[in-house]
């Protein structure tokens, strides 16, 4: 009886666990078998390593292509053609008597501009330009040119009744034409043959110059592409992000700390947790509707304001920050909490002097992901009116404003060709802003990690 039992067991074992060197069916030793399988295992590993490496390279290439494409399209937006005009500030054209400030402000610069231009382009026969030609030659220059003349005369009134050279912007169509094919006298997109020949003349006289486009960074939006800049949208974005960060970070961290450290673990906190997770998946436009219905219509906050935009984006980023912060807080080793509790620290002291500093790097990462998300958000802002055409740079969080992504959307939608480059340039600025935020976050992270 004692013999039969173990033997039955051992035969069963042999059937189930064959691949051991003790089984008589195989003559190979363990070392040989391991060696055999080792080859295969190494092959698998190197295959995986190759795949991973190519995945990284592929992703990197995509980013390169993206940046390269946007960058090359954006380049034209950073420079702009100016033209030197011989302007004759005659007082009868200006319709003023003296150089008092009041007169200089209301003087008729358009006539001065027109007459000076017509004077510069005599017809071959020496006759006066036809009406049609006049209109065409005037269209070569930016509508802003008369204001350039005005500023020039106000800053140096001694030029009244004299002829002087003034640099003005060319029209955006001319600018785009010159950027693509330098003045050769051929007709181009929205440029007639006649206009092209005038440009050749101007360029031969060395009157055309390409300059860095400072106004792209110092001006706000404009209907005229050659005047449009991103300062308004950039300021709007910074103000909105300021409000978002100010609201979402403390609220998110406080919420996460409460849920992790203080709240009892029961059905209610489970429901809250599920809801927070669901909130993170709500389409952002829904938050925009909420902002419109509640924040603007019910509470009566101003439309198009960074304050409202910030509140709406806070609603959107809060779940992200709470989820990331909770994960970071959970990762703080319990031994640290026990050490502080064992010394008689209160829960509050444990939380703020031990848990929070340890969780800070993770919380910052979560916060940055949330803010980066908010930075690129367009949909909810459309609902609360931040999509408006706004020429003034906002100075406070209740001024009308727009933000970079919305500005990009608006420009991309504009028919003028020159806005194509502006759109790409604005995207570059947005990406640069994102980079600045990420670098700041990384620096903050390392600072907290060192502690």
């Amino acid at each position, binding site marked *: 009886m004692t013999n039969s039992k173990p033997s039955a067991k051992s035969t069963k074992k042999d059937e189930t666990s064959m691949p051991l060197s003790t089984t008589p069916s195989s003559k190979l030793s363990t070392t040989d078998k391991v060696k055999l399988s080792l080859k295969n295992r190494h092959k698998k590993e190197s295959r995986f390593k190759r795949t991973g490496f190519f995945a990284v390279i592929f992703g990197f290439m995509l980013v390169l292509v993206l940046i390269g494409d946007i960058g090359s399209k954006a380049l034209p937006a950073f420079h702009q053609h100016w033209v030197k005009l011989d302007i004759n500030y005659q007082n009868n054209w200006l319709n003023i008597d003296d150089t008092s400030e009041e007169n200089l402000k209301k003087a008729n610069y358009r006539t001065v501009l027109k007459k000076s231009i017509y004077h510069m382009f005599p017809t071959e026969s020496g006759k006066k330009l036809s009406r049609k030609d006049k209109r065409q030659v005037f269209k070569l220059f930016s509508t802003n040119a008369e204001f350039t003349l005005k500023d020039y005369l106000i800053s140096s009134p001694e030029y009244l009744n004299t002829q002087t050279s003034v640099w003005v912007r060319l029209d955006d169509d001319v600018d785009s034409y010159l950027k693509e094919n330098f003045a050769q006298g051929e007709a181009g997109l929205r440029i007639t043959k006649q206009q092209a020949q005038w440009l050749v003349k101007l360029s031969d006289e060395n009157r055309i110059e390409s300059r860095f486009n400072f106004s792209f960074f110092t001006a706000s939006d404009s209907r005229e592409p050659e005047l449009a800049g991103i300062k308004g949208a950039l300021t709007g974005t910074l103000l909105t992000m300021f409000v978002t960060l100010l609201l979402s970070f403390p609220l998110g961290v406080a919420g996460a700390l409460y849920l992790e450290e203080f709240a009892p673990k029961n059905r209610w906190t489970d429901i809250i947790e599920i809801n927070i997770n669901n909130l993170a998946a709500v389409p952002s436009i829904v938050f925009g509707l909420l902002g419109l219905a509640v924040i603007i219509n019910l509470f009566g906050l101003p439309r198009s304001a960074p304050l409202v935009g910030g509140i709406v984006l806070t609603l959107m980023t809060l779940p992200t920050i709470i989820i990331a912060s909770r994960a970071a807080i959970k990762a703080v080793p319990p*031994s*640290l*909490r*026990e050490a502080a509790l*064992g010394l008689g620290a209160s829960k509050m002291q444990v939380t703020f002097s031990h848990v929070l500093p340890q969780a800070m790097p993770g919380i910052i990462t979560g916060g940055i992901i949330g803010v980066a998300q908010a930075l690129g958000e367009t949909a909810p802002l459309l609902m609360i009116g931040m999509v408006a055409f706004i020429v003034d740079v906002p100075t406070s969080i209740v001024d009308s404003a727009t933000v970079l992504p919305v500005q990009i959307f608006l420009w991309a939608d504009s028919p003028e060709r020159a806005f194509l480059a502006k759109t790409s340039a604005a995207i570059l600025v947005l990406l640069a802003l994102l980079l600045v935020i990420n670098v700041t976050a990384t620096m903050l992270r390392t600072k907290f990690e060192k502690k």
Partner: protein
Amino acid sequence: MNNLNIEEEITETVGNIYAENAKMSIRSADVFYGDKQAIHNVSLDLAKNQVTALIGPSGCGKSTFLRCLNRMNDTIDICRVTGQLMLDGEDIYAKDLDPVLLRARVGMVFQKPNPFPKSIYDNVAYGARIHGLTNNKAELDEIVETSLQKAGLFNEVKDRLNDPGTGLSGGQQQRLCIARTIAVSPEVILMDEPASALDPIATAIIEELIDELKEKYTIAIVTHSMQQAARVSQHTAYFHLGKLVEMGKTEDIFTRPSHKLTENYITGRFG
């Protein structure tokens, strides 16, 4: 040897649970985790200025019991403690007793050294700071220095008090944790296997330290090492499956244990 038969016989603790000069006295303590009972009807005294060792096989509840003595189990939601647990005749589970105050009087040193990720100085000064023991920088320096000296660490770290505590060796970290506990001037120190993660030399230093500390503090130590219990303690309590099997003077327990289970454990026949 069949342990199962003997286990059924654990009805009452053998030996002497009473101390002449008891700092803490526990009567009929039961501890539950949810529905599961982890400690069954344990009664014992911790003698003042003496070391009491709690020994027993893994999972016997000695750590759970130790953590009840300064209400560290409060952090576990499902944990419930009943019975009478007294510190100087005061019920430590009384409703109006603040666990923060209790933990200032009953300090704890954990199995794994767990210094704060702060400087050595801040580690030791932390307890004094949060309890507002002093507002004076010079006094705080004094507290830090004497605590480190009592823990036998001062000479090793006096030149680098601002270095992070986590940069010390395991043994030094554990002594730092002891210094941190002493700095609050508790009356009782609970030690949960303080030397289990340390090498023999560091262990010897800690044991010496425990011997010195008992002059000022009442100490309860959980240990897996019978030799350690024999070396450092005056009283030994043997736990088995959540019950206190035997308690008595250390030399009695180790030379002539009364209960068969105790004998089996200390002679190494099981455990």
